[in-house]
């Protein structure tokens, strides 16, 4: 029996403060579609990048056709015949299809004159092989649909001598017809002996084209090479979720108030192409979780409520007063605060001190005619950060030197200081290590107990279930289920968010 095409054993990879991969085994045979499953943060992206030669593993062994191999660089991986299609398509929008496909290995004359016609011929040939002769190699990639861009990305992968293609959620942006076409292409590739590592959240896709399944959880492969068709869905979900971190969540306060009038009322809010009209209310002291996959419209809903995006339809009311749509300042004035997903890019002034980061939304309170009372500012900011036990307890510390958890606390302190009534949390624990998460959960629950209404978005289902009082399940821009958190479990939520279109 020939050795498998790829065999990875005991792969580990550490980043400062994070153990991204902690012993991953993966075996892929020639001509096989091998599915890789796991929740967000389970280590899939890191594993892909190790395979693509972007990251170097700290430990473990990679055997390529039976010989031990080091993937020193993306070029090295490419030379072996490993191609990667990232979820975020890495195409250059302002270049043509042909130019994108031949990028980095353009056919040239005398070493530098690009032979445009030859590049176009090659591109056309590849596109024909992929069953898309209608894509003109001369078009700019930016003018193509998402599905067509996917094809171009695949053509680029195939423009090299390819033995293994890694596809990271290739179906995420496609409609059912396009998905069927994608599967046809995959079948043709595997018939030629090319192996595919296929990553998707949609179980029914895995059943349709997958041969074997490897499940990752917390950086470890918890199952290696299960049969894709015959393994029960319940088992797969159990493998993905079986975790023991429930105890970090604080107790819910007895009898969470749901009878009071809602402080935040969202009515028929929608944005074209992002989410369908959603309606729900948020009561003081209540934590509501929004569960859903990446791309289900979670963050978009939050940002639209906050006025950072302008809604197509619908309104937002705070204490019965309608908010001006698309106006962040109106939302802030009304008492809404946002802790955005991209903390560093969207919330923090990295070079500034903790005090200045905390007080930035409340400056007018500490000023008369624009003149700042810096003592008052500092005292108040420090009071807020102490309430959240932000470390170090130094108002002059630069935010960039804080840990992820403490950076998040600085953002929360900003809104605590402002005295906001509604707090929107988008992936509050992203980049926060496990220990600090528990502390953050306690902080959020503590804020709710003081009467704040919290809307929580997280792609980690246990987080939503453990922290929220009530859960709204989102799928493809629609709320498909609403229930008290106690009535749901992780399997049920995952079933709800992963069910395909036709099965709902």
């Amino acid at each position: 029996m020939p050795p498998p095409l790829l065999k990875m054993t005991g792969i580990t990879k550490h980043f400062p403060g994070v153990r991204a991969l902690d012993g991953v085994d993966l075996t892929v045979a020639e001509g096989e579609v091998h599915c890789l499953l796991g929740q967000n943060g389970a280590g899939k992206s890191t594993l892909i990048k190790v395979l693509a030669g972007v990251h170097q593993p700290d430990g473990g062994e990679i055997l390529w056709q039976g010989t031990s191999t080091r993937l020193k660089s993306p070029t090295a991986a490419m030379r072996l015949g490993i191609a990667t299609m990232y979820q975020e398509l890495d195409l250059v929008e302002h270049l043509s299809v042909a130019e994108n496909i031949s990028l980095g290995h353009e056919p040239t004359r005398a070493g530098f004159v690009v032979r445009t016609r030859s590049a176009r011929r090659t591109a056309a040939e590849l596109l024909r092989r992929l069953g898309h002769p209608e894509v003109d190699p001369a078009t700019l990639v930016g003018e193509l649909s998402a599905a067509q861009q996917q094809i171009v990305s695949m053509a680029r992968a195939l423009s090299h001598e390819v033995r293994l293609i890694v596809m990271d959620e290739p179906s995420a942006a496609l409609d059912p017809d396009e998905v069927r076409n994608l599967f046809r292409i995959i079948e043709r590739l595997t018939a030629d002996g090319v192996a595919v590592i296929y990553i998707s959240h949609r179980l029914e896709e895995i059943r349709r084209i997958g041969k074997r399944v490897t499940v990752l959880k917390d950086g470890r492969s918890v199952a290696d090479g299960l049969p894709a068709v015959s393994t029960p869905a319940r088992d797969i979900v159990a493998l993905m979720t079986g975790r023991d971190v429930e105890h970090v969540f604080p107790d819910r306060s007895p009898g969470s108030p749901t009878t009071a009038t809602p402080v935040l009322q969202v009515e028929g809010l929608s944005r074209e192409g992002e989410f369908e009209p959603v309606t729900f209310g948020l009561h003081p002291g209540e934590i509501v979780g929004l569960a859903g996959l990446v791309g289900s419209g979670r963050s978009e809903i939050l940002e639209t409520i906050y006025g950072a995006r302008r809604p197509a339809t619908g309104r937002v009311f705070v204490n019965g007063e309608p908010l001006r749509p698309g106006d962040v300042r109106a939302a802030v004035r009304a008492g809404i605060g946002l802790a955005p997903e991209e903390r560093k890019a969207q919330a923090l002034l990295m070079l500034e001190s903790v005090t200045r980061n905390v007080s930035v939304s409340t400056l007018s309170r500490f000023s008369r005619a624009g003149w700042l009372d810096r003592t008052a500012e500092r005292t108040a900011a420090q009071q807020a950060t102490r309430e959240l036990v932000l470390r170090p307890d130094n108002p002059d510390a630069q935010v960039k030197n804080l840990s992820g958890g403490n950076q998040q606390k600085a953002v929360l302190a900003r809104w605590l200081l402002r005295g906001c009534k509604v707090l929107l949390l988008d992936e509050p624990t992203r980049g926060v290590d496990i220990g600090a998460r528990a502390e953050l959960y306690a902080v959020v629950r503590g804020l709710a107990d003081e009467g704040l209404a919290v809307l929580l978005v997280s792609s980690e289902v246990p987080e939503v279930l453990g922290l929220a009082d009530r859960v709204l399940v989102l799928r493809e821009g629609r709320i498909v289920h609403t229930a008290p958190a106690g009535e749901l479990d992780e399997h049920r939520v995952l079933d709800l968010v992963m069910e395909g279109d036709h099965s709902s």
Partner: protein
Amino acid sequence: MTQSATAPAAEKSAPDVPPPRRPALGFRLDMRTLSLLGVLAVLVVVGGVTQPDSFLDTSNVQLILTQASVIGVVTVGMTFVIISGGIDLSVGAIVALASVWATTVATQEYGFAGILFTAVVVGLGCGLVNGLLIAYGGLVPFIATLAMLAAGRGLALQITDGKTQVVTVDGVLKLGERDSYILGVPPLVMVFAAVTVVGWLLLNRTTFGRRSVAVGSNAEAARLAGIDVRRQRLYLYLLSGLCCGIAAFLLIVLSGSGQNTNGNLYELDAIAAAIIGGTLLSGGRGTITGSVLGVLIFITITNIFALNNLETAVQQIAKGAIIVAAVLVQHRTARE
């Protein structure tokens, strides 16, 4: 750097009473300012050694400060703009336009007040146009102010028709002469000092300054924190325009005339002074003190060269070398 001194202290002390670090005046001499002062000190020594008679006397100090006044005022405005993540390439052109508009025959009929008023209002007007184009028109600062540079210079040339407009208003001329010095301080230098102090206070003690830094540090975060980023940008370019208007008036007083060639390459001098003073070209960080020291360093270098009768070519080479050296030193101190 200042941080490493306080962080361990904070960790050690009980959570209750970490003494808030508040030096008197809240004015702290950080490494950057100290290194700039060091450079200035070295220059003073060089000047004093090479030209003991002419460098170290009152009239030369008066001269250096006077010559720093015009570009200094422009640099204060520029510093705000750069801190906020923008750039203003039109400062030289605005100075030129304001100075010729304020010295036309017709303006001069309104006397001192007419000249001052026109210079300031033209400066503000140009700043307003810049600000509207950038904040509400969505133009990139580089492009908007480059357009203003071209238009301002063109309009200035059209107004003067290439001629030198000599000022005949006595009050304005007198202000630039020795009789007007108060306790040995030229009025131009007083204006420069006042603009510096106001600029420092504005940046360090007001919500305006805080918001400017926030916008430059992270515009998206500032917006999501509820700051009106666009209005802030508008105000910043207005401020730069105002500084140009004041500088134009100072230049009129100093040179006794208005010419369309005025303010030649001020944009580069002001940017260079701000950068040397520690302002990050990418925004979010900068000090008025640093910028003003940057201006003084430049003017002092020029002064020493002139006193030693060095050629223009040598002066330019040295100037370039000093810019590079200063920025390199800063990168080093910033990393530590």
